[in-house]
């Protein structure tokens, strides 16, 4: 069994540790302590005993909680620690955290479970086993104390890291009995607390990783320093699918600091130098010839035309949700309404560009990087290095933003590929912002044609949605396709499940004509609920208007069977003050949706000047995630998701020319600033009984709420994102 690395997120010694680990040949060596007569104890790097995979307790009562999910700002590092600590009954002020490595996870039969941190799953899909881990450790600690006192464990209880023998009043602390607890057989089954008894979970506790993020000491992947390390800058073929034809190495070999120019796979070239700046300067001077291939003919216009063809009902399509007979209902309707919407490619633009540091020798390959999926990164290291699992590992760093981008491992493979060509030398590969902007995994592009049908009494009798466009799973996870269909395409539109539609319409047809351009797609915060919520919620507004009805009242009539959707909608309607007129010149819009097993709604108040300048005054956003582990962090996720979502609406949109992404940096791919930030009033309303995600769901109601308010203000429908392309911007 592997020992744990010391990876204390709040420790001032993090950086020293990173360097120290490397200096020791990155030997996170196995450590088994087989004491006289007792079973084996696994020890942390500092010698402290591991009670179980989740819990290490030091003699000074410090509790080290170890979790597999990556921290990228969303706060699940803290939330998961709260869940463990709740059941452990430990002193929260003495809690710290660390990451196990994927290599250790593999060696220990996946003791920490899934490392993947995406799909707003960090807490909701690990809450059960991490709570059980905390509870099991508590039981073992109590049993150790009871054994020492020679009393029945049933007479002892634990609170705040102190164990008390009730009849005698004797006490001891976790730190004193951890060594003995580590030798106790884990309980076969544990009972979890009733949520009503939670003391640590459900509280808006401060994050555990803040201090080092204010003083420059937090180590991100980009900050890794290893002895003898060199730096690499890379250029991949600007056209996806193209190849590297040739480069003129002689032009840069004499340049200051340049050590080597290396080919990476068959479509990229990297310059390795003493500093990254030298590598970048030389790379910019390096003459490169690309074989761009057929994809160089593709443009935004050609993609749009192809997608538009998919809106034709005669084109084959995968059905995502169907009830009744829309064709007949539309044919027999008293009135129909039609609209076509579209949603563009978008880059994640994490603040920290992609990077990874790799050290390869014929015996070992290690990588230091930020990743949303440690095990996928580990697999990439195995594949790129050609070494077996017991000779590889990945040391996860705190991420300078993820948003879905760091679930991919292209940058990890590149770093290993370069390092493999320079054995024994640690190589830090860092992408320039331009490389990052033009080699993303973009939010997929789609269009949607919708038809609504009314009877003579203005009741909605049919809704038809034809989505045409790109599938993420087709490119990234083809094994998840179901007979060719990408179920994720229908997020928020499904008949049931964790992303179900929140309306009942007697005749419904939602289908998808899949068209996959060569621009590689990816999971972008919110993923497919982003466009689906715009399509459905803006069209609902159009239908309400066509029926001459209040947009809230119109929705409510269709939501009888969707009480949780209705509850969040009602919450924002009430808080925005829909029963009273908005201030002079201010207009309101609404949206509700479901994603990642959470119910979300938003109300926006905006004013519009000259039809082109939008001031978002106020956002009210509600979410029902079932359970709220840390309401303060949920509020931050909600507010932040509006920055990401409204940035997408106003400034997003990556366009394609000659087969490549045109945007290159923040000067032509803008991002919201503080002046544009509306006041976001969050309503966190957990109703219990289910576990929903938090990081993504609310993003999807940001844009439709604002677009619907724009219609209320101007009488004009905007059906195309981003607003930048229609010369509409923030006031």
């Amino acid at each position, binding site marked *: 069994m592997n020992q744990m690395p010391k990876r204390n997120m709040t420790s001032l010694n993090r950086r020293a540790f990173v360097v120290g680990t490397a200096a020791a040949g990155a030997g996170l060596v196995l450590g088994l302590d087989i004491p006289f007569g007792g079973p084996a104890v696994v020890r942390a790097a500092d010698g402290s005993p591991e009670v179980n995979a989740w819990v290490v307790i030091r003699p000074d009562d410090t509790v080290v909680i170890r979790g597999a999910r990556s921290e990228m700002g969303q706060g699940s590092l803290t939330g998961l620690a709260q869940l463990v600590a709740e059941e452990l009954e430990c002193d929260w002020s003495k809690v710290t955290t660390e990451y196990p490595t994927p290599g250790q996870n593999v060696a220990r039969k996946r003791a920490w479970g899934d490392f993947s941190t995406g799909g707003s799953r960090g807490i909701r899909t690990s809450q059960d086993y991490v709570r059980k881990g905390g509870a099991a450790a508590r039981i073992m600690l109590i049993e150790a104390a009871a054994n020492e006192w020679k009393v029945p464990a049933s007479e002892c209880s634990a609170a705040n890291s102190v164990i008390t023998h009730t009849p005698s009043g004797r006490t001891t602390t976790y730190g004193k009995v951890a060594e003995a607890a580590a030798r106790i057989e884990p309980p076969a089954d544990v009972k979890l607390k009733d949520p009503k008894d939670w003391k640590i979970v459900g509280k808006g506790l401060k994050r555990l990783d803040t201090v080092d993020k204010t*003083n420059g000491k937090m180590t991100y992947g980009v900050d890794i320093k290893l002895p003898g390390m060199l730096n690499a800058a890379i250029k991949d073929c600007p056209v996806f699918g193209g190849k590297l034809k040739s480069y003129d190495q002689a032009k840069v070999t004499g340049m200051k600091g340049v050590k080597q120019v290396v080919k990476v796979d068959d479509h990229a070239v990297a310059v390795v130098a003493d*500093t990254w700046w030298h590598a970048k300067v030389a790379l910019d001077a390096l003459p490169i010839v690309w074989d761009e291939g057929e994809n160089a003919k593709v443009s935004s216009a050609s993609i749009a035309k192809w997608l538009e063809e998919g809106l034709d009902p005669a084109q084959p399509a995968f059905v995502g949700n169907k009830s009744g007979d829309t064709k007949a209902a539309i044919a027999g309707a008293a009135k129909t309404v039609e609209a076509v919407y579209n949603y563009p490619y978008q880059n994640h633009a994490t603040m920290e560009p992609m990077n990874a540091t790799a050290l390869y020798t014929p015996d070992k390959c290690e990588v230091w990087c930020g990743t949303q999926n440690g095990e996928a990164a580990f697999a990439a290291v195995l594949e790129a290095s050609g070494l077996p699992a017991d000779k590889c590992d990945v040391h996860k760093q705190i991420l300078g933003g993820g948003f879905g981008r760091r679930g991919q491992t292209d940058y990890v493979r590149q770093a290993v590929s370069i390092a493999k060509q320079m054995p024994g030398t640690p190589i830090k590969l860092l992408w320039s912002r331009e490389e990052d902007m033009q080699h993303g995994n973009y939010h997929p592009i789609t269009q949607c044609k919708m038809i609504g049908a009314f009877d003579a009494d203005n009741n909605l009798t049919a809704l038809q949605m034809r989505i045409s466009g790109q599938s993420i799973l087709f490119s990234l996870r083809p094994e998840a396709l179901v007979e060719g269909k990408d179920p994720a395409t229908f997020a928020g539109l499904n008949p049931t499940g964790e992303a179900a539609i929140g309306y009942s319409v007697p005749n419904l047809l939602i289908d998808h004509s899949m068209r996959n351009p060569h621009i590689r797609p990816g999971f972008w915060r919110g993923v497919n609920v982003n466009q689906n919520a715009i399509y459905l919620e803006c069209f609902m507004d159009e239908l309400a208007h066509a029926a001459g009805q209040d947009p809230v009242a119109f929705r409510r009539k269709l939501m009888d069977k969707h009480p949780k959707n209705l509850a969040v909608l009602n919450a924002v309607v009430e808080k925005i003050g829909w029963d009273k007129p908005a201030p002079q010149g201010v207009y309101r819009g609404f949206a509700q949706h479901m994603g990642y097993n959470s119910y979300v709604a938003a109300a926006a108040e905006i004013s519009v000047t000259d039809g082109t300048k939008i001031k978002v005054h106020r956002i009210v956003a509600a979410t029902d995630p079932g359970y709220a582990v840390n309401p303060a962090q949920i509020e931050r996720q909600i507010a932040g998701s509006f920055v990401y979502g409204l940035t997408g609406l106003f400034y997003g949109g990556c366009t394609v020319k000659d087969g490549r992404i045109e945007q290159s940096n923040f000067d032509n791919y803008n991002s919201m600033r503080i002046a544009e930030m509306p006041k976001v009033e969050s309503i966190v309303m957990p109703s219990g009984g289910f576990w929903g995600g938090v990081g993504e769901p609310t993003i999807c109601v940001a844009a439709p709420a604002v677009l619907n308010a724009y219609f209320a203000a101007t009488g004009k429908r905007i059906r195309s994102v981003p607003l930048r392309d229609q010369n509409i911007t923030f006031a």
Partner: protein
Amino acid sequence: MANLTINGKTVDVDVEPDTPLLWAIRENIGLTGTKYGCGIAQCGACTVHIDGVAMRSCGVSVAEAAGKQITTIEGLAPEEGPLHKVQQAWIAGDVPQCGYCQSGMIMAVAALLKEKPKPTDQDIDEAITNICRCGTFQQVREAIHAVANA
């Protein structure tokens, strides 16, 4: 070779005069709290103080910075003393999410508060133009006012 004064210490740095200050700070001096985000002075992740003024260090050459007092996030508070009041407000307000932009954000705010100890919302809007992709702006604004009203 350039002679730079960073956080009160003067050091000779063996770089070309046109090297961006950001990279000299990160790679030659080894202070990595100052972050690279865009390289074109758009995002503000690399903000430092040069003679007390907030500057985006990716857009300043070492030649331009030579002879001036440069302060990075590591030098905002005295080495052995308490954290700067902005850093303290950031901790009290639990401001950072991923944290990558926050060194630059804190340096920009510290410079603003030095100039305007009680900034209005409009002052904040005009002075703080750093990008934060996590979207911490609401907490940033609250923390600035908290410092001003302390």
